[in-house]
């Protein structure tokens, strides 16, 4: 696969390294001369010095034959522009962008960016996971606006323990998609029985976290 990465922060560097190790063809566009030198020293001739929001630079990077363009600059707005330029001018089949402000996620989906990686959500989810007594963790937003993937761990005193999934009334448009037990994950059926410390992964409408939380963890 031919991958062009625009903006090479720490994560861009590790991503390029992993992609190269995986046998992919990679070009990294970096505006900052110092970082460009560093990249060239570390990764060889994959780095290209230039502004990734300039059409000529993108052309030099061979974006028109890229399978994927990943925008990893530190600015949401710039990542949006890179993704839209590569998608519409160079017809790149898959555009991926990093964002920091979670509120920017809907507009990226709306204008057709294929994959939106929300770094704040990712960090927040990991932090939430580490906080004791925080049973509901937000995993990701789905591409369909208004739906999200969450994970809930069932406390020992929850009154749904021992019940079958078919007996539990979920909010409308909510689905349990995976049950993770101590000995591994299983696909839920109506007959799956909820046990203490189970981890339930669910797709729910954004905003229904509290309702689901109360149903599944209520005493």
């Amino acid at each position, binding site marked *: 696969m031919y991958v062009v990465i625009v903006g090479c922060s720490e994560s861009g560097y590790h991503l390029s390294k992993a992609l190269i190790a995986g046998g992919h063809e990679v070009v990294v566009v970096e505006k900052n001369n110092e970082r460009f030198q560093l990249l060239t020293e570390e990764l060889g001739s994959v780095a290209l010095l230039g502004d990734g929001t300039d059409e000529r630079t993108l052309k030099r990077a061979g974006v028109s034959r890229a399978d994927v363009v990943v925008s990893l600059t530190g600015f949401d707005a710039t990542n*949006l*522009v890179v993704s839209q330029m590569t998608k519409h*001018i160079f017809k790149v089949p898959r555009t991926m962008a990093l964002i*920091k*402000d979670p*509120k*920017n996620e809907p*507009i990226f989906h709306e204008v057709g960016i294929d994959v939106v990686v929300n770094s704040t959500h990712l960090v927040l989810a990991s932090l939430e996971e580490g906080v004791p007594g925080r049973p509901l963790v937000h995993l990701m937003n789905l591409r369909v606006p208004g739906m999200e993937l969450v994970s809930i761990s069932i406390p020992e005193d929850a009154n749904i323990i021992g019940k079958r999934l078919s007996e539990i009334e979920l909010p409308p448009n909510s689905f349990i998609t995976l049950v993770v037990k101590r000995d591994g994950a299983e696909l839920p059926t109506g007959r799956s029985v909820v046990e203490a410390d189970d981890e339930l992964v669910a797709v729910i409408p954004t905003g229904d976290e509290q309702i689901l939380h109360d149903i599944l963890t209520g005493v």
Partner: protein
Amino acid sequence: MRVLIFGCNRLTSSLVADLADGTAEITVLGGERDCLESVAVHPGVRVVLTSEPMMQDYLQEGGIDHADVFLAMSSDDHQNILVAQIAKHIFNVPKVVCHLGSPQLQVLYAALGLDVVGYSFGLLQDVRQAIEA
């Protein structure tokens, strides 16, 4: 008419002076305190001092959900592109005008359906026309 303007600079100052007729409700979002103070003297003008990380919160504070016109007029093309598309696609503001300095970006975003203005388009007249169209 409720007008929300993103960015405070010389262009904004001229625009506000032109648009503030006492009947228009104008809100200007910007990070430049001096500029905001100078536009705030016009009738019907409210200003909001912003810093970048909370961009969308400021848009809401500026009343984007009931604006009739949104003008992305900062000197940062990328920010203008982001907020103009948010105004158009997320908040469905009926009239959105986006200022872009880069001719490449002007061509792309005009093709993607934004009302784009820039030096090459004869700036002030275009904004006026775009609002009234």
